[in-house]
């Protein structure tokens, strides 16, 4: 005979304001098998948990139902309490009467009725709960960091510092990411390269860190503590182990008209190239789209001049497989292309540039050697207009609904740097709001306005009209003065929105992690678990989770590293016992379950069975690897013969709940 205890939580007024908790406890007390039914103000508090523990001991309970908040919040709390009182933790059921009841209803009578029904369903289920024991699975002591920007580098350095092996996979020929392209950093105006490149070198020299540059993640299998990842090392046609990075090949390459992506296409590079002087690894890469030898077999200059014999035109993509205990995603961001905002004339006027292009125009290693010149005629610009929020805070389909967060600060930085270096240049900034929360950030922006006399104008630019004399007419509204302005400018700079890298979505599918509608990775909890994904063992670092500046990115990178280290420190992890299992006598080997399993946890084997007539027969039956199964239940639904069942959520338990609700 079952002896079930029911515990109804008030959650302060969260539940008690809309649900008559006393009536719920009273009603559930009459259910079959229920020996005690109580309500309490905060069931999750220590005294609330004691109530549960004491009742288990006192009434020798065989099952517990807690009517409270979502199981995502406190299922673990009550399972632990039950376990400490000697009850198997899987004999605890949660009836969610907060998120699914009190918070969404207004009428007390109907909310109370619903809470009672939800409680009855949980009681019906707990009647059929069986004690489960969690197994253990070993942890591979190696981490993978996907993305080699400042986020990935910082995460890798921190994990390596704790003594674990860590691999960085970077799709470009060098690590460094966007920060390598930036000229100066706010709010201190120190040079980005000066603070980034030592970290890049540190990562390269750290014995625990392996950098797979020009590589991509091709496949991910497994689960927390035991991922198997296939990494595709793309053919760079240069032997990384032989190349010394001398750069002779890049000097001699006859194909010199390749748009240089590092300088945002503002100048050209050669077909064989090293992205920038401080690249890590400092190894040349041949671009097969432009290399004359690879395209039509005529050239071979780089191979002739290479003293190290590193050029290998026959190199192919290589797949390597590696096991990892933890994976950190650090895939970063890209600025959007402003081609849907042609009121700013970006697509046809070379003197309308994006902010990242301006970074390169102002950088000493950029196309003009650090002198700010108009791209069209290489003259010095005397009037520059900055347009903020291009594609950010947009309520239409063209742009992004969110604030890109970093633009206000880098625009203030650009404006200030220009006024500092070229005091004869007038700088206008058009903004919707200036958003500068952050340590020393608002002071920085005020310096731009007060000390450097940058003209900040509240209002949006409506039309940018390039004129025949090379000037640009910028038509805008000044909302504070209620005026239409026409500014005769030489250059226009667009602070374009940032978006997650395009590789993020296919990667999220491989990792079975969640993304929001903007393709930013979703954290496990927006406030309390900001660097973990909802998938165990996958952590989030940097702008792949949301727009971030460098200080915030580094902070999150280190936090993600700390979480990964916490996992790698364990020798084994407790597995979820709520996994699927197959009844071999009922299984007909149809493969329906295998096809729907997203984790590859189901395999088939031929087994010998004794038939009713005492003969033996070989039959193909499904078997589930409990270490790989995540308990999603897809197979139990797909199974046509009802052989597949899920521990803790068996078909009979679910049906009992449905029956209780429909009774």
């Amino acid at each position: 005979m079952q002896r079930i205890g029911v515990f109804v939580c008030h959650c302060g007024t969260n539940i008690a304001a809309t649900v008559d908790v006393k009536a719920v406890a009273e009603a559930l007390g009459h259910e079959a098998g229920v020996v005690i039914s109580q309500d309490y103000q905060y069931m999750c508090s220590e005294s609330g948990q004691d109530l549960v523990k004491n009742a288990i001991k006192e009434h020798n309970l065989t099952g517990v139902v807690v009517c409270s908040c979502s199981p995502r919040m406190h299922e673990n709390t009550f399972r632990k309490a039950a376990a400490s009182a000697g009850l198997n933790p899987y004999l605890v059921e949660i009836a969610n009467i907060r998120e699914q009841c009190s918070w969404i209803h207004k009428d007390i009578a109907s909310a109370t009725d619903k809470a009672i029904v939800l409680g009855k369903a949980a009681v019906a289920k707990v009647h059929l709960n069986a004690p489960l024991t969690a197994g253990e699975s070993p942890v591979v002591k190696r981490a993978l960091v996907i993305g080699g920007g400042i986020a990935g580098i910082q995460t890798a350095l921190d994990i390596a510092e704790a003594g674990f092996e860590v691999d960085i996979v970077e799709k470009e020929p060098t690590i460094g990411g966007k920060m390598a392209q930036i000229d100066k950093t706010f709010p201190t105006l120190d040079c980005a390269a000066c603070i980034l490149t030592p970290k890049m070198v540190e990562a390269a020299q750290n014995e625990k860190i392996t950098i797979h540059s020009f590589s991509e993640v091709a496949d991910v299998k497994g689960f927390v503590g035991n991922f198997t990842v296939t990494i595709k090392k793309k053919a760079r046609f240069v032997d990384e182990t032989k190349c010394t990075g001398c750069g002779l090949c890049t000097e001699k390459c006859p194909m010199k008209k390749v748009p240089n992506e590092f300088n945002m296409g503002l100048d050209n590079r050669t077909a064989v190239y090293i992205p920038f002087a401080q690249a890590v690894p400092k190894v040349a890469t041949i671009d097969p789209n432009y290399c004359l030898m690879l395209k039509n077999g005529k050239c071979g200059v780089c191979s002739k001049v290479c003293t190290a014999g590193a050029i290998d035109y026959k190199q192919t993509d290589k797949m390597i497989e590696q096991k990892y205990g933890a994976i950190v995603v650090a895939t970063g961001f890209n600025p959007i292309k402003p081609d849907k905002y042609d009121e700013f004339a970006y697509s046809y006027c070379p003197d309308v540039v994006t902010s990242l292009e301006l970074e390169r125009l102002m950088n000493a290693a950029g196309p003009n050697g650090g002198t700010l010149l108009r791209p069209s005629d290489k003259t010095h610009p005397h009037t520059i207009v900055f347009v903020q929020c291009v594609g950010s805070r947009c309520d239409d389909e063209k742009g992004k609904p969110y604030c890109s967060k970093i633009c206000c600060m880098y625009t203030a930085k650009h404006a200030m740097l220009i006024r500092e270096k070229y005091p004869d240049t007038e700088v206008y900034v058009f903004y919707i709001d200036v958003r500068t929360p952050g340590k020393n950030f608002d002071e920085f922006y005020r310096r731009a306005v007060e000390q450097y006399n940058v003209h900040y104008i509240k209002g949006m630019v409506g039309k940018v009209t390039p004129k025949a004399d090379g000037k640009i007419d910028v038509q805008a509204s000044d909302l504070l003065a209620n005026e239409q302005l026409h500014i005769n400018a030489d250059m226009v700079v667009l602070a374009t929105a940032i978006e997650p890298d395009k590789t993020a979505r296919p990667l999220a599918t491989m990792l079975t992690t969640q993304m929001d509608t903007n393709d930013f990775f979703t954290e496990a909890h927006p406030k309390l678990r900001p660097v973990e994904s909802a998938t165990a063992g996958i952590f989030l670092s940097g702008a792949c989770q949301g727009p971030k500046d460098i200080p915030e990115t580094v902070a999150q990178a280190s936090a993600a590293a700390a979480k990964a280290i916490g996992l790698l420190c364990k020798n084994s992890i407790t597995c979820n016992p709520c996994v699927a299992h197959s009844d071999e006598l009922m299984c007909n080997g149809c493969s329906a379950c295998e096809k729907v399993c997203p984790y590859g946890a189901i395999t088939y084997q031929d087994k010998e069975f004794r038939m009713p007539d005492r003969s033996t027969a070989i039959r193909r039956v499904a078997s589930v690897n409990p270490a790989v199964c995540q308990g999603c239940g897809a197979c139990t639904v797909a199974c046509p013969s009802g052989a597949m069942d899920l521990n803790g959520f068996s078909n009979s338990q679910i049906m009992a709940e449905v029956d209780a609700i429909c009774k």
Partner: protein
Amino acid sequence: METFTYYPGCTLRTKAKDLDVYARKSAEALGIALVEPENWQCCGGTYTTATNEVATKLSAVRTLMAAKDSNGLVTVCSACHNVIKQTNYDISKNEAMANKVKRYLDLEEAYKGETTVYHYLELLRDVVGFDKLKEKVVNPFKGKKIAAYYGCLLLRPSKALAMDDPENPSIMEDFIKAIGGTPVIYAQRNECCGGYITLEDKAQAAKRSSAVMDSAQSMGADMIITACPLCLYNLKKNSGSDMPVYYFTELLAEALGLKEDNNE
């Protein structure tokens, strides 16, 4: 020869005869038969400010229904196109509206947006193909710098009209290339010409249309083309500019060798 239903609209019968005549002639030469429905009436352009929303749809739906069983409905005038295609889009998305229109017009069954609406430029791009058009050109506009003027109505709202990117369009530039000319890109090509404001505030219309003409001329244009009778009127009469303004169909006919008077 492929047959399409052709809707000229009122202005093409009065003020904008050139837009109509050369559209028909050129279509014939390009192997397209344009068949005018009997007793067609206003596109609905004059009802758009009516407070009753159903009233704004009725006229357009009559036209759309007339083309239901053909390969599609072809329009030329920017305003007609805008009204008819938008109505088609709205009605395909809004079943309640489709049913209201059914009751108003006393239809046997509701019209739900089955007709495909083409602007004449879309017909050239998607049915004829600009490559094919290029092959048929006998008098190419070689060396001519031609500015395409889209105006406000032709491409917007882009979701309903689904013709081209309204901020960075290319359909008219591609057309200019196909007839051998050199397209001129200028900032004002998709801005307003002043429209009906010419009726009450000539100065404002002059300001808008001269901005368009000056912008095109300053970027080196020899002439400007449009698909809209009202744009043509404003650019010609209100801008104060003497740069020639043509309907795109005039240039098309001339390129195909169908225009008798080549000096115009």
